[in-house]
């Protein structure tokens, strides 16, 4: 017996999608979805992944929670899982997901697979953070979190790579907390929630023509050095959330609010985890040298503004000036967009149009890429 895979299925994830509801959070909504005849999407999606893994069952142990939280889909796929924990069938909540994630982690799984949507990812994130490699099986209605594989096929693929000892590195991927309806209604409800550790997809195939790849960590450090080198005296630097901006703060020797916005001047911390109000106050007091926003692409959809960094509101962006925005992102992150443009959704359509065009994204020290930015 080789590796241990953990499995969590959020039985209600994706329940709302097929019957036209916007999400599946909350028991009342789930009940209504069931009444409308919704099928548990997560069960189906998890099954697709598990069936790919089933022929290799002799090489791994599958640990999971009882019944609809993993055991049933596993057995349906022809696997015989080791079942831990206890649930109330038909009445599971986010707490069960959290408990399962923590217990599976403590059981020593090498990779934790979970089927669900953004809410499921948040529960897993609450429980285990970046302490164990994870990978999401996409089953939610609309997924913003970058911890999910693009398809069940690719999820199975990644799991197989872990099984074959072919994964060379892991990276931190975003978990998002977004209520699309609230965003549409202009309410601040699109936060960056946290990070999970996921297998890196790149660098698996050796390329004798182009030489080695730069690892994620080295790439971020290089981007950070590029940003720091360009910093000028007395200017206010507003550093957005995320691991890439965190690398900038690390390069400065400063602490970073991973999920929030920090402000730096002359390489010193001015304020941590600021709100829109605080930013506007700071900017109102600014003199000639002005300010610069440093942001990265957040989540799997390619948003630069409007998801996960609501503090950087239209008023803040206007006060700084649209030509004083530095976008930073690792090359692999841009490649993962597969040609789609970067997005802005500040809630101010006029501003979105002004921001549209080409962003010169810093991808390493001395290297940038022109990327289309669309409202």
């Amino acid at each position, binding site marked *: 017996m080789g590796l241990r895979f953990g499995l969590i299925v959020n039985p209600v994830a994706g329940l709302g999608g097929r019957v036209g509801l916007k999400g599946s959070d909350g028991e009342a909504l789930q009940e209504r979805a069931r009444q409308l005849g919704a099928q548990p999407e997560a069960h189906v999606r998890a099954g697709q992944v598990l069936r790919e893994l089933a022929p290799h069952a002799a090489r791994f142990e599958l640990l999971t929670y009882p019944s609809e939280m993993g055991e049933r889909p596993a057995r349906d796929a022809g696997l015989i899982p080791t079942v831990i924990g206890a649930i109330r069938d038909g009445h599971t909540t986010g707490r069960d997901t959290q408990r399962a994630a923590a217990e599976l982690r403590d059981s020593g799984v090498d990779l934790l697979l979970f089927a669900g949507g953004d809410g499921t990812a948040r529960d897993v994130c609450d429980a285990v953070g970046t302490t164990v490699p994870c990978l999401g099986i996409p089953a939610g209605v609309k997924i913003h979190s970058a911890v999910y594989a693009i398809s069940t096929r690719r999820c199975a693929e990644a799991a197989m790579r872990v099984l074959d000892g072919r994964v*060379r*590195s892991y990276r931190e991927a975003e978990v998002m907390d977004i209520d699309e309806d609230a965003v549409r209604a202009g309410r601040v409800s699109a936060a960056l929630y946290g990070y999970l550790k996921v297998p890196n997809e790149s*660098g698996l195939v*050796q390329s*004798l*023509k*182009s*030489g*080695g*790849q*730069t*690892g994620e*960590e*080295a*790439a971020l*450090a*290089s981007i950070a*050095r590029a940003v720091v080198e360009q910093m000028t005296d007395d200017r206010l630097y507003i550093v957005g959330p995320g691991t890439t901006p965190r690398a900038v703060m690390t390069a400065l020797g400063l602490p970073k609010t991973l999920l929030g916005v920090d402000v730096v001047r002359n390489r010193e911390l001015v304020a941590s985890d600021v709100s829109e109000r605080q930013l506007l106050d700071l900017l109102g007091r600014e003199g000639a040298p002005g300010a610069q926003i440093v942001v990265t692409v957040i989540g799997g959809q390619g948003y630069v503004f409007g998801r996960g960094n609501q503090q950087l509101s239209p008023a803040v962006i206007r006060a700084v000036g649209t030509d004083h925005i530095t976008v930073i992102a690792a090359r692999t992150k841009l490649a993962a967009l597969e040609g789609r443009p970067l997005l802005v959704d500040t809630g101010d359509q006029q501003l979105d149009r002004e921001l549209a065009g080409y962003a010169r994204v810093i991808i*390493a*020290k*001395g*290297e940038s890429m022109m990327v289309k930015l669309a409202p």
Partner: protein
Amino acid sequence: MAKPVYPYIPNSEPAQKQRLLDGIGIDSVEDIYAEIPDHLRFKGRMNLPEPLLSEYAMKRHVLQILAKNRNCRDNLNFLGGGTWQHHVPSVCDTIIGRDEFLSAYVGDAYSDHGKFQALFEYASMMGELVGMDVVATPTYDWANAAAFCARMASRKNGRAEVVMASTTSPSRLMVIENYLKPRISLVQVAHDPETGALDLEDLRSKVSDATAAVYFENPSFLGFIEMQGAAIAEIAHAAGAELIVGVDPSSLGVLSAPASYGADYVCGDVQPFGIHMQWGAGLSGFMATRDEPDYVAEYPNLLFGITTTTKEGEYGFGEVFYERTSYATREEGKDFVGTTTALYGIIAGVYLALMGPQGMRELGEGIMQRAAYAIDVLDDIPGVQTPRFKSPVFKEFVVNFDGTNRSVRDINKALLDHGVFGGHDLSRDFPELGQSALYCVTEVHTQADIDALATALRAVTA
């Protein structure tokens, strides 16, 4: 005349070409070129020499041109200075001509297992010779290798100055200078005019906390052996700088491995190892370091490592440190890699396996004896003084002709009539040496060859 069917182009046969057109469903290749706007098209027929379609005619034509050359087989050659005439074992010529190696390229170890193993073995034997555990795939030449070592050192310690012996090969220096621009500057260290050795006082005064690396060549371009390796290493290391030593590896059967006197990087050229001179086309640089992640991370070259496969007991090969980690700052001031001189690396491996430890010792010792003999007999010639530097020499040495009142240029022209290629003229690059030439003697030279040189020199300087 009908359009020829070209032997290198099977589908130039009209019926085959028609099959292509039919398969695509077009009438003419112009349907494909239609994607190129008319104003970007080349109009007319290229003005090139009329072709010699048959292999025989072409070969005869080329051989007639080459016959205008005078070669080092029919003449007595004493030129060195970056390319050297050594015996090329027949086995080396056989392997370099194998179509498998000759026409392979970037296939992975599954199609090109043998290529990987051959390059791993090259690295293994070079590593033994220089005393290092890591040897990268070859570079274009020694100059390229030295420049990459300097850039690696600079990235590793974040410093931007390279201190270099003033006896460094001038043409190599031109290459290195171009590679180091604009970020890294070069500082030259004086040498002792008597011995040629690095002036340690001057070195101390020039090495500082800005020094990324100290570089010297051993044997030096001017042939003498730098005896103060350990002292130079100590000065460099005391300032936190790296030591790069460039070597002619044919000396390493008798000379200490650079790692043993403190080199952090060793570079040089493997042309002496079974590769014909080819008017300078035989160059192939090598680079070696210790096996520590902060050194390994900075290599721009491919690094081939040995590993296991799904088959028990089988050796497999793959690229090491493919995904460079945070050790690496290659993104900054990074280098380009590409097609360099892998085939020559393979051949250098063949050569070293043929020679073995004893062969390398005999080669080195025999060359030193011949060189000493040549110095002895040439110095007897009136007006000729050698060695110019009072240090041991390996295979090259400076001969001064000031006492003959003739220029090296004149002497070398006159030597041509005796079927002798005299030493490389140093008067342009090292004016302080007066009318001096760099002579090179290797295992290909017999006592009679050296005596013939002396006789010819006596005649032309008389």
